[in-house]
């Protein structure tokens, strides 16, 4: 190991930069998402106005997507647990909370993959099925990004660089995670509840 005893401590860095940057990134991500869902809403309304069927009856099931929703609600508590633990300098709890959040993310990915396969939809079949893939795919991309963000935060936390008043990265990961949860609540309502 490199002997670091006696070396000066790292500079005190400006707080909030990462959080502000993540806030702007979340705003941009949300607008991308709203653009995608906006077109979904438009096309669905047009199809219904024309009297045609949007999704075939009984293909979209509410149960599995509900599991995702409630798992994500649970993950809000785990990610905020991580923020609280880091702010309290409780490393062990922070590790557990971040790991749990990441695991929830992996489980949601697995569940959503099952749902998409279970529908038997094809992208080229019609507009409704294409947009089903497109909206869910968009969510998957953001979910993967959130899991990667949490994983990197976990690694940085393991390196011991976070603590009270140095919890910016964990707070930023939480902000992005909660944005993704918000996205699913919209997908769940639009595609799975109101179909």
């Amino acid at each position, binding site marked *: 190991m490199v002997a670091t005893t006696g070396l*000066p401590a790292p500079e005190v860095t400006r707080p909030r930069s990462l959080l502000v940057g993540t806030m702007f990134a979340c705003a941009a991500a949300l607008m991308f998402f709203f653009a995608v*869902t906006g077109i979904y809403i438009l096309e669905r*309304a047009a199809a219904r106005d024309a009297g045609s069927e949007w999704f075939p009856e009984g293909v979209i099931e509410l149960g599995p997507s509900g599991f995702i929703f409630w798992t994500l609600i649970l993950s809000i508590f785990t990610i905020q647990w991580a923020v609280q633990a880091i702010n309290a300098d409780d490393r062990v709890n922070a590790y557990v909370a971040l790991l749990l959040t990441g695991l929830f993310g992996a489980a949601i990915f697995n569940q959503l993959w099952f749902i998409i396969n279970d529908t038997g939809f094809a992208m080229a079949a019609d507009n409704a099925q294409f947009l089903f893939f497109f909206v869910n795919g968009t969510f998957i991309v953001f979910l993967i990004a959130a899991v*990667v963000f949490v994983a990197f935060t976990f690694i*940085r936390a393991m390196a011991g660089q976070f603590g009270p008043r140095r919890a910016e990265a964990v707070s930023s990961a939480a902000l992005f995670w909660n944005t993704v949860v918000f996205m699913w609540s919209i997908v769940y309502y639009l595609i799975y509840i109101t179909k």
Partner: protein
Amino acid sequence: MFTTGFKFFFGLGMALAGAAVFYGYTTGGNHMGPLSMGWKGGIGEHLGYSLLLGLGVTAITVALFLVFFRDADPAAQAHYMGVEEIPTNSLVTASFWPVVGAFGVGAMAIGLVLHTAVFVTGLVVCGVVAIEWLMDSWADRATGDPEANRVLRNRVMAPIEIPALGAAMVALGVLATSRILLATSKLGSVVVAGVVSVLILCIAVLFVSKRRINRNILAGLVLVTAVAVLAGGVVATVTGERDFHHHEVDDEHDGADSVEGH
């Protein structure tokens, strides 16, 4: 009480949300539809309404965050940190990973159109960049001594980087040479094999005779290679598959002859 940043984003958000409601009513919305997001009535033209409302909600959310941490004003930051004077932002050490990452994303984009293998290569590059970037960020904040941070970073990463880079270069060289050998004629492949062998020998001699290669030359070579790879991808995409592929697919008899001929 309300900060400037909050006022701007809140004003922006409220105006856009208000515009969404107006838009809804003026494009065919009825009853309480535009006010209740379609819960009790129609919302009019759907896309404009959804996007204006989305813009409004997003801007208001940004406003609430900004007021929560007082616009990240220097005084608020100093108070949060418990210090008298807010520190300047720290200088970040030089790194070539952002440029490599940009080329990785470029490869992913071209791979989307050209071939899955190119996309996966870009994805792998981006993954490597993400890890290296993470380690650089960690090392930058390890101690207050930049030189110690550099040594620390290299101590952790060099045992992984050097073998991985060596293996990647060998694999790339073997793959590229095999493609060239397969694409050229019998005589051509002998010539290519000879040239490649001499090239490897020359590079080895260069490394041995001159221990420190000018890093600008090295950077130039890497940059030219990266640009050439991406440019090759673009050219391959726009020119499409070579004729002999169509030939084999279209005419099995000819294809069989050509295989026999080899």
